[in-house]
């Protein structure tokens, strides 16, 4: 079967599509933007005009798991996700310099 394929980078997700993709309510995604787990290009625009790309889907899924698996509130999840990103950046740097 030939499926209609799009890459999120070329057709970003709306707020509702992102919420549905992670099995959440729209308001939960708005909270992710408020605590800066997700960045939007124009935070002052109304949420229905926001757009999200692959990195947002990845972070929203990760936040959902932290909330569910460890009972983390979203501020704690934001800190953990930032630390994870920093860990990956440092590991990539170590790889790049042949240190790992």
């Amino acid at each position, binding site marked *: *079967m*030939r*499926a*209609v*394929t*799009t*890459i*999120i*980078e*070329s*057709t970003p997700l709306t707020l509702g*599509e992102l919420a*549905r*993709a*992670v*099995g*959440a309510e729209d308001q939960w995604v708005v909270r992710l933007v408020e605590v800066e787990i997700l960045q939007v290009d124009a935070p002052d625009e109304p949420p229905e005009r926001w757009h999200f790309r*692959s*990195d947002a*889907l*990845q972070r929203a*899924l990760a936040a*959902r*798991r932290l*909330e*569910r*698996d*460890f*009972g983390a509130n979203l501020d704690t999840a934001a800190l953990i996700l930032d630390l*994870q990103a920093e*860990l*990956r950046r440092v590991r*990539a740097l170590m*790889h*790049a*310099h*042949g240190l790992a």
Partner: protein
Amino acid sequence: MDFKDYYSALGVARDASEDDIRKAYRKLARKYHPDVSKEADADAKMREINEARDVLSDKEKRAAYDQLADHVARGGSPDGHFRPPPPGWDEGFEFHRGPGQGPADHADFSEFFSSIFGGRGNMGGAPRGPYRERGEDHHAAIEISLEDALHGAERQLSLRAQEIDAQGRPHLVNRTLDVKIPAGVRPGQYIRLAGQGLPGHGGEPAGDLYLEVRIAPHRLYRVEGSDLYMTLPVTPTEAALGAHVTVPTPSGGHVDVAIPKGARNGMKLRLKERGLGGKTPGHLYLLIEIALPPASNDAARAAYEALAKATPSFDPRMNLGA
């Protein structure tokens, strides 16, 4: 199909409280978290405990699972293998999707899980009579070669998917999808296949399928985001005096690269926009690695000795203070 013992997966007793299950899960999830775990089978363990938690932390699923476990213990499978129960085995149970539980969570679960609970998270509490709901979105991963990521490709993907039969019961079918991989895709990006998620109810459309792109390890190149890294071996002569060397590029061609005079081990050379494509193409980084020619004949030995004589003040251990 083997029957899965979710209690032993979490290391808890059959009569464990909700709190015991939560504590056991959190302890194991920290142990096997892919970012911190040193265990070789961390990914598989994580999938196993996620699946066990999904069932045991949900009262309704746990009760249904316990009933099934009792059935198996009473000799429900004479050959020792588990067979999916017939339709209707779960009558009297309702499966609700709890807070934080979504379709995304089930992508990696086992065939055993799918045969028991596949899709029921969506059905609990469904009102009698006309019931309309769009199908849930589904998640999976697709591993492609670096070449496919660079040039784009069309790949076949086999998926176990759920369909609703004429009686309104879900059942699993094997599906093959042709997936178009766009050129320039990067690891961690998602490809969305409209209408390939879980089926809708009451004439509503199916959900979408999201495929997370992973790139298989490559013989020469290592992928970091949109950048590529390659180790470039050079001779001591090339490193000391500078040289021009020919290097293969990921797109299949070759390029002439100038090694600067006095190049050091670990030095990084950047080939601009020779990484993965897209709107802002990544770069190709060459990591210099100085390879020593073996002193395997008289001429080579004499050349090393001549080099030592020519550089009497060179002391690589000067900073050791010895």
